[in-house]
C-alpha cells in the first residue's frame, strides 16, 4: 500500500485551494530536462535573471538595428537616443514634475473608482436585485469609447481637473465594478453558511468573511485596473492641456518629435512596471497564507 502514513504530511486535497507539489521526479512525462519542460518551476533567482536578461537583449537588438540605419530614426529612434532625450527633458522640461502630476491624476481617479466599485460590485453580486438593475447599464457603458465622450465630459465638468479625473474614472470604474462583482461571486457559499451557523448576521458575514475571502483576488484586480487607468491618460490629458505626461507626449507628437514621444511613453511604461512589481510584492506579503507549507 502506497498511502502516506498518518504523520500529517501533505497529500493533495481538493478541499484546500492550495496546489501541493509532489517531487518533480514523480511526474516527469518526458525525458526532457531543464527549464523548457511544460510548467516546470525555475530555480531560485532565475526568474529575475531571465527577465532582466531578456529585456536587455531586446534593447540591444533594437539599439543595433537603429545604429545600423535599418530603421528611420524619425519613427524609431535608438534606445540610447530615447534615454538621452529623457535626461534632457528631465532637466529642461520638468518631465518628472509632469510624471508626478500624471501619477496623482491616475491614482486620484483610480482610488475614486475603487472606493465606488467595491461596495457597488459587492452589492451587485450579493443582492440579485441590485445586480439585475445595474448589470445592463454597466455592461453598456463599459463598451463606450471614452474618447468620443470627451465633449460630453466637458459640458458636465468643464475643462479643469474634474474632466481629466472623470475620463480616467470612466475608463476604470465600469470594468472594475464587474471584476469586483465576480470576486464576490466566487466566494464559496460555505463561507457564508459557516458564518451564519456560528451566529453572524448578514452584515457580519459580509464584512468578516466574504470581504476577507475575496481580498486577494480583489487586490489583484485593482492592480490590473490601475494599469488600464494609465492607458486612458493620453485621452484625459490632451483635454485643455497644460501638464502631465499625456500632454507632453501629445505636444511632442504635434511637432513630430519622435524621441520625445518615445521618452514619454517609456516613462509611463517604467512607472507602470515599478508600480506593478511593488503591488505584487505587497500582495505576496499580505497574503502569505495562500502559499502552502
Amino acid at each position, binding site marked *: 500500500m502506497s498511502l502516506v502514513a498518518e504523520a500529517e504530511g501533505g497529500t493533495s486535497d481538493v478541499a484546500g485551494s492550495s496546489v501541493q507539489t509532489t517531487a518533480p521526479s514523480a511526474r516527469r512525462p518526458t525525458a526532457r530536462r531543464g527549464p523548457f519542460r511544460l510548467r516546470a518551476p525555475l530555480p531560485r533567482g532565475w526568474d529575475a535573471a531571465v527577465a532582466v536578461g531578456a529585456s536587455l537583449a531586446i534593447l540591444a537588438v533594437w539599439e543595433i538595428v537603429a545604429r545600423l540605419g535599418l530603421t*528611420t530614426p*524619425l*519613427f524609431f529612434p535608438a534606445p540610447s537616443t530615447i534615454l538621452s532625450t529623457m535626461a534632457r527633458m528631465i532637466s529642461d*522640461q520638468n518631465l518628472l*514634475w509632469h510624471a508626478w*502630476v500624471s501619477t*496623482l491624476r491616475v491614482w*486620484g481617479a483610480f482610488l475614486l473608482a475603487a472606493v465606488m466599485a467595491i461596495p457597488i460590485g459587492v452589492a451587485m453580486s450579493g443582492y440579485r436585485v441590485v445586480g439585475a438593475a445595474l448589470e445592463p447599464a454597466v455592461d453598456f457603458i463599459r463598451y463606450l469609447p471614452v474618447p468620443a465622450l*470627451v*465633449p*460630453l465630459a*466637458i*459640458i458636465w465638468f*468643464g*475643462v*479643469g*481637473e*474634474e474632466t481629466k*479625473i472623470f475620463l480616467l474614472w470612466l475608463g476604470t470604474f465600469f470594468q472594475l465594478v464587474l471584476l469586483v462583482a465576480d470576486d464576490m461571486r466566487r466566494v464559496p457559499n460555505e463561507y457564508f453558511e459557516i458564518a451564519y451557523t456560528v451566529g453572524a448576521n448578514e452584515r457580519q458575514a459580509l464584512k468578516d468573511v466574504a470581504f476577507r475571502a475575496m481580498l486577494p483576488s480583489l487586490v489583484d484586480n485593482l492592480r490590473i485596473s490601475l494599469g488600464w487607468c494609465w492607458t486612458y491618460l493620453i485621452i484625459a490629458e*490632451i*483635454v*485643455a*492641456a*497644460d*501638464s502631465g505626461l499625456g*500632454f*507632453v507626449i*501629445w*505636444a*511632442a*507628437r*504635434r*511637432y*513630430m*518629435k519622435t524621441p*520625445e514621444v518615445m521618452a514619454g511613453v517609456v516613462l509611463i511604461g517604467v512607472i507602470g512596471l515599478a508600480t506593478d512589481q511593488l503591488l505584487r510584492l505587497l500582495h505576496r506579503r499580505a497574503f502569505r497564507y495562500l502559499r502552502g507549507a
Partner: protein
Amino acid sequence: MRHVVIAAAFSLLLASGAARAEDSRIRVLAPTWTGYAPVFVAMDKGYFKELGVEVEMRFEDDRSNVLAAMTRGDIEVDMRTVGEHQGRPRDASTPGVIIATIDKSVGGDGVISAASIGSAADLKGKTVAVEPNIPARLLLQLELKKVGMTLDDLKIKEIMTQDTVAVFADPSIDAIGTYEPVMSQALSSQTQRKGKLLISSKDSEIIIDIIDVRQDDLKKNPVKYQKFLTGIFKAIELYKSDPAEFIKLAAPHYNLSEKEVKEIFDTSLQFTGKAENVEMIGTKDKPGKLYEIFDTVMQLNLDYKAADAKLEARQQIDPSVVTAIAGAK
C-alpha cells in the same frame, strides 16, 4: 508654484467653480500652434498684469471640446482659423464672435504631393489624405475651384495630421493636406517620394487665425477685451523689435527649442499686430479685408458641406474692440 496650483486643484476637485472676479479674468483655449505665442509672451512679460487682466491659456486641439467648454461658460476665448470658426455646427446663435486676428499662415499650411502631380488639375481621381476642418483642406478646395473641380473629384482619406510623415511614406497616397512642421519633415525625410509643395498658404490670404470671444462676456466687460488685445499687440511689437527675446519666452510653452520656434516663425506665419488689425477688421461703417475673406471661406465651407448655415460676416465679426483701441497709443 505650479505644484501648489495642482495640489489645490485636486483638493478642490469637488468644491471648484467658486466665484472669481469675472471682470478681470480671461480663460483661453487654443490649439498647440505657435501662432498663438503672443498670448504666452504677454503673460510672461507681465503685460496683462500691468493692464489689470488675468489670463489663463491652455491647449486644446479638438474643436468640439472647445465648443463644449465655451457653451458651458468655462472659457471666454477661443483661437482658431476663420475656416474652423465657421465649420459645423456653428449657426448664428452659437457662442463666439470674432474680435480680432492674431496671425496668418504664410507657408505654414499647404498640400504636398508626389513628383508626378504637376498641378491641382492632376489630382483628379487621385488619393489625397487630409484631416477634416484643417486649413489645408480649404486651400485645396480653393485651388480645385479654380480648375473647376471639387473635393468630390478626389479620393479623400481622412488622417491625423500629426501622422503626415508616416502617411507620406505610403506610395498609394498621391497628396496630403497638412501643416508645419510635419509638412517640411515629410518632404525632407521621405526622399524616395520626390515630394514637392503643391499648394502653400504663402500664395493665399485665406488662412487667418482669429480671436473668438463669448458674446455675453464681451457685452458685460468690453474694456477687459480691449486690455487683452492691447497686451497681445504689445507682445507682437516685442517680436518685431526683439525677436530673440520673444522666442526665448515662447519656446518652453511648446516644449520646443528656440531654434525650432525661430524656424517656424520664419517659414510659416506672420503675426498681425494693431496696424494689421485696424486694416483687417475696420470699423462698423467701414468693414476691413477680413469680411471679404470670411465670405470666400464661407462659400468654400458651404460647397463642401463643412458648414450647415451661411453665416453673415457682419454678425460674426465684432469690430468694436479693435475700433476702441485703434486711436489709443
